């Protein structure tokens, strides 16, 4: 039996359906990321798991207990909020022990657990400081420490990195990853940042408009998105979409491309019709031998490790990622060859992957 189980969970706010029949399961020790654009219902879903938002349809199970009707405090969950929600008038130690004080845990026990958590999170020297005297990363550790001492079944994170600057965001993400590897606590993490999702998750639940689009591991999600939305949401720079026609023999024609697609890219036999061909920027080479298209370079973005070459091919915007030593500049016309085995084909109207 899985550790966390959501069964047909739906939630409406008035006439607005925020979540529609959401079901997924997570194994003990897994790191589940709820990913989606803002307004997709991912935070609502998290609040339903905590019990902070009530009145929903469907059932929620945590650690073999049906928690659907339980109060937040009885669900054995702990949450790290976007703002960290530290109590500004209490010291770090008091912040961590607040829940235990409320629940009348004996003082000696309380102090011991605070110290244990502080040791695990390297907060020992900060126990007598106030939240305003801490850095963003330290605040997050306190928020996590507050969760740890409660020994919850489930850790929940609501966009905890979104208030941090880029450098700190990276550091705290690494810290989170380390922490999860060490503690093996089952975690549900909400974010709209695909990069966070890819780097942290053992399983990604991709949401759109209150519905699950795809549940998959990060690598699976990247390589085999179920539809155009999933393909465009994951990956930076965004996947290239070339509009064109597909023949029954598997030939794609459009956007300056006339290529025969390998059978392996289709789940079934190719269905002729209007399609969009998804090509990841890194699946391109600049080469004159057997080129597929010619790209007129608009601008080049050096990222350090690679060059993102942006340009137009047959009226469509295309970006390719090439080696940083490549010599290319605006106005150049460069020959492109794609690795078609990695191509994704989507139905032009429904967006579903063929």
């Amino acid at each position, binding site marked *: 039996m899985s550790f966390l189980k959501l069964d047909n969970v739906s939630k409406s706010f008035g006439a607005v359906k925020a979540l529609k029949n959401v079901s997924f399961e997570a194994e003990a020790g897994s790191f589940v990321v709820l990913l989606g654009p803002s307004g997709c219902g991912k935070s609502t879903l998290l609040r339903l798991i905590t019990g*902070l938002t009530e009145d929903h349809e469907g059932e929620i199970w945590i650690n073999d207990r049906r928690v659907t009707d339980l109060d937040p405090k009885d669900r054995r969950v702990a949450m790290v909020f976007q*703002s960290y929600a530290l109590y500004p008038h209490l010291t770090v130690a008091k912040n961590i022990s*607040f829940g235990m004080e409320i629940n009348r845990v004996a003082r000696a026990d309380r102090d011991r657990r605070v110290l244990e958590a502080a040791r695990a999170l390297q907060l020992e020297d900060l126990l007598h400081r106030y939240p305003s005297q801490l850095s963003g990363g330290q605040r997050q550790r306190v928020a996590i420490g507050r969760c740890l001492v409660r020994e919850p079944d489930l850790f929940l994170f609501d966009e905890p990195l979104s208030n941090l600057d880029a450098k700190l965001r990276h550091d705290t993400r690494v810290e989170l990853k380390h922490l999860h590897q060490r503690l093996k606590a089952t975690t549900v993490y909400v974010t709209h940042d695909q990069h966070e999702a890819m780097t942290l998750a053992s399983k990604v639940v991709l949401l759109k408009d209150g519905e699950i689009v795809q549940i998959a591991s990060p690598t699976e999600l990247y390589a085999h998105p179920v539809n155009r939305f999933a393909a465009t949401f994951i990956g930076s720079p965004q996947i290239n979409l070339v509009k064109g026609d597909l023949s029954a023999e598997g030939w794609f024609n459009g956007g300056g491309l006339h290529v025969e697609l390998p059978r392996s890219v289709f789940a079934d036999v190719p269905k002729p019709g209007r399609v969009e061909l998804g090509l990841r920027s890194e699946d391109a080479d600049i080469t004159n031998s057997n080129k597929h298209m010619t790209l007129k370079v608009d601008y080049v973005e050096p990222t350090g490790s690679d060059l993102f070459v942006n340009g137009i091919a047959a009226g469509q915007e295309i970006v390719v990622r090439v080696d940083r030593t490549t010599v290319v500049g605006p106005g150049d016309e460069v020959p492109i060859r794609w690795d078609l085995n990695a191509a994704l084909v989507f139905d032009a109207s429904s967006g579903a992957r063929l």
Partner: protein
Amino acid sequence: MSRRHRMTPLKALSLAFQYLTLVVISIIVLLPLWSLIVSSLKAPREYLDTNRIVPPQNWFNMSNYLEAIYPEQANGITIGGAFLNTGIILVCSLVLLILFGSMAAFTINRFKFRGRLLILGAYAALVAVPGILTPVSTFQVLKLLSLTNSKWALVVLYSGADIVSLLIFIQFLRGISTEIDDSARIEGANYFQIFFRLILPMLTPAIATVVILRTVGIYNDFVLPYIYVPQPQEATVSMMLWNMAGYQSGTTQAVLLAAIVLVILPTVIGFFFLQRFIYAGITSGSVKG
């Protein structure tokens, strides 16, 4: 460097004008206070013979103050008793006011319920009722409660939260993320624990502002004590001064002035200690605390 700081005649003139204005305004504000202090230190004869702003012959003549504190013929009011009454009224009504006001604000700000805006509207509408219209009915109510002629009548009247205090609290609560409440709820706190252990301590700046605003109002109030509590034993400081100034009292002017100085003293001292909060209170709300 020296060029930049060189004073042009125009700049000097403008600076002189600024200082002149400040000096004039300061004199206007401080002169009555000066007059009060110097006069309160003068002997009875000297008080009559000299004008009001001449310094006293003896800066350490405390006889007026002693007379104010230990009057020869007490009308049932001593200055100590008046301070005690005012103090009791202040402390009791402020505690109740803060409790009622912050709780009402918490409920209005954090819970969505029917009639929420109606309650807020009712508070606001009260401001529109002229105070002069209500004493008769208020008196009836207090009489029904057997509270007339007692300082507890004033405690009851002052402890109702007014719209200004309520809005100050609501404004501060808006700046406190509801994630704090959510976090505490997950940790097992009920609404009372959330309010008393987290929200109330976090409202300290708002409480300071309300305390300052209301203290000034209550401490200086004359009308309500005059109407509801004319009893000398229950007199507040303002009532005591009024009694001393009355033609029936044998108090001399200089003694009255000494008493006034004594009454002003706590406010002045209080202001020096609390001015940090007063400035903070004025700018609060716009900037998150």
